[in-house]
């Protein structure tokens, strides 16, 4: 197995043993509660409510995990000095970083997979059958995973040189800015003041646009998701993740571990 692969498997094992996947219990409780309650209080829109709630919960649970685990991913290894023995092995620093990133991504994917199963079970409970448009839910979940991959890369980047608290603030700040990226760009349309136009334009082009990854509404209402969006989002996330990993490796490669 490759070096990043070995590190990734260990990172996944750490997450599992730290009982990170216990969040699935809370997700299951939400889904069970929603499925029972929705059937009683809403008529004809049970599917809509369950899909909305389920996908939002998958996204929120995933985001919380990717930010809070991501910001400690490298920091913890430095603080606890577990990194010292590891870097004395034939491991390049970038390989370690990619491994840590891959490990958390694996954890998030497994977590999302089980949550998706929970959502499917709740949908089946309220509808007694699956419909063709339910396939859109899978696309929405895929977009959520792309979003989580991007957020994890941002958290990892800050984790390379900052404390978990600051890294959380920075990552959350970028995420919130990214969610409202289009609105921020539109602000520039209302004024010709350079002090507003240039910074907003800068933010729009630099911060990843997380709004593009939100297909929850489309999946809930059974709308069309253009095939091009699938590839665009994939390429967009891959490009940003690659840039962030390169930047993280550049920062990490020159760090002194005092």
């Amino acid at each position, binding site marked *: 197995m490759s070096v990043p692969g070995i590190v990734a498997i260990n990172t996944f094992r750490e997450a599992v043993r730290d009982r990170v996947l216990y969040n699935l219990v809370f997700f299951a409780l939400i889904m069970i509660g929603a499925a029972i309650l929705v059937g009683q209080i809403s008529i004809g829109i049970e599917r809509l409510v369950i899909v909305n709630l389920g996908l939002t919960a998958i996204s929120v649970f995933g985001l919380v995990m990717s930010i809070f685990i991501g910001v400690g991913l490298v920091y913890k290894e430095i603080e606890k000095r577990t990194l010292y023995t590891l870097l004395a092995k*034939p491991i390049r620093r970038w390989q370690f970083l990619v491994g840590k990133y891959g490990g958390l991504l694996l954890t998030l994917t497994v977590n999302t997979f089980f949550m998706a199963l929970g959502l499917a079970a709740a949908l089946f409970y309220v509808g007694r059958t699956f419909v063709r448009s339910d396939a859109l839910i899978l696309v929405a979940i895929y977009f959520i995973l792309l979003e989580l991959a991007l957020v994890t890369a941002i958290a990892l980047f800050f984790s390379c040189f900052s404390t978990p608290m600051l890294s959380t603030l920075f990552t959350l700040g970028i995420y919130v800015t990214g969610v409202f990226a289009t609105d921020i760009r539109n602000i520039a349309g209302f004024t010709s003041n350079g002090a507003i136009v240039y910074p907003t334009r800068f933010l729009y082009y630099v911060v990843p646009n997380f709004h593009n990854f939100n297909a929850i509404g489309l999946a809930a209402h059974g709308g069309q998701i253009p095939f091009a969006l699938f590839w665009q989002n994939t390429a967009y996330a891959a490009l940003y993740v690659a840039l962030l990993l390169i930047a993280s490796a550049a920062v990490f490669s020159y760090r002194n571990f005092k």
Partner: protein
Amino acid sequence: MSTPAIEIAGLTKDYKIGFWHRRRRRSLDNLTLQVEEGEIFGCLGPNGAGKTTTLKLLMGLIFPTSGTAHIRGRSIDDVEMHREIGYLPEQPYFYDYLTARELLDYYARFSDFSATERRERVEHYLAKVGLTTAGNLQLRKFSKGMLQRVGLAQAILHDPQVIFLDEPMSGLDPIGRREARDIILELKKKGRTVFFSTHILSDAEMLCDRVAVLHQGKLQGVGAPAEIVAIEAHTTEVFFEARNGHALAPCLIERATQTGKRYRIEVPEADLYPLMDQLRDCDARVLSVAPVRPTLEDYFFRLVDKSQAPSHAVEVRTK
């Protein structure tokens, strides 16, 4: 001539300090030394002497401000060099969610062993450090001494040519210390090079072919332990007592330390005969005359006393 196991040339490390990072503190100052293949080499010095800094520089955990270092002819920047070395950091801390067996297996995976070979090595080295029965216990339940043993096992698991140990005896009980000493001597027998830092000077005297003494980031001396202490002036200690009815001269009593009826005076070799004359004049009974063999510990403490400064790295001026 064969390539030295470790070759350090002018290695210097400054840390930037202060809010604006405009001041620098020198932790290691122009260290130059060579360690030959098959040697057990000790790095001695008080806290802040630069021992751990030296090891971290060699491991690539920190980067030198200036100077170079090579291990078995390869630069310390070369990641492939790490296949030939093992490292035990000071007060090691490992993934506490893993068992000792899992941890060693994890580290062994970086050395391209087959699954069977990995398993065999893990069991062999667990047994070597006396942890076979604790192999399936999570490391969070390990004592400091047990962690030190696991640390030692992971450092030699892949049979490296050069082994770096930072305070290997720290936290070990007497049995553990003896086992660690045996492991180090066994490594030497196999032709491996061991470079270790220690505070425990008796271990260094017992194990090391040569030692380097560091103080405030500077190299104070390199050589065999006996050579190092030979630099110090030799003294002789004389034990004596007064005979019944005979008083000792006041100048003798002033210089001596008394224990019961016995007196002790330590004098440089040159002053021994005048002292003996004085003792004869007082009709004192000489109980013993013995040369004081200086130990590394004496050398070490004299070094620290000489500087009279607290032992920490020195701040340096920058342009």
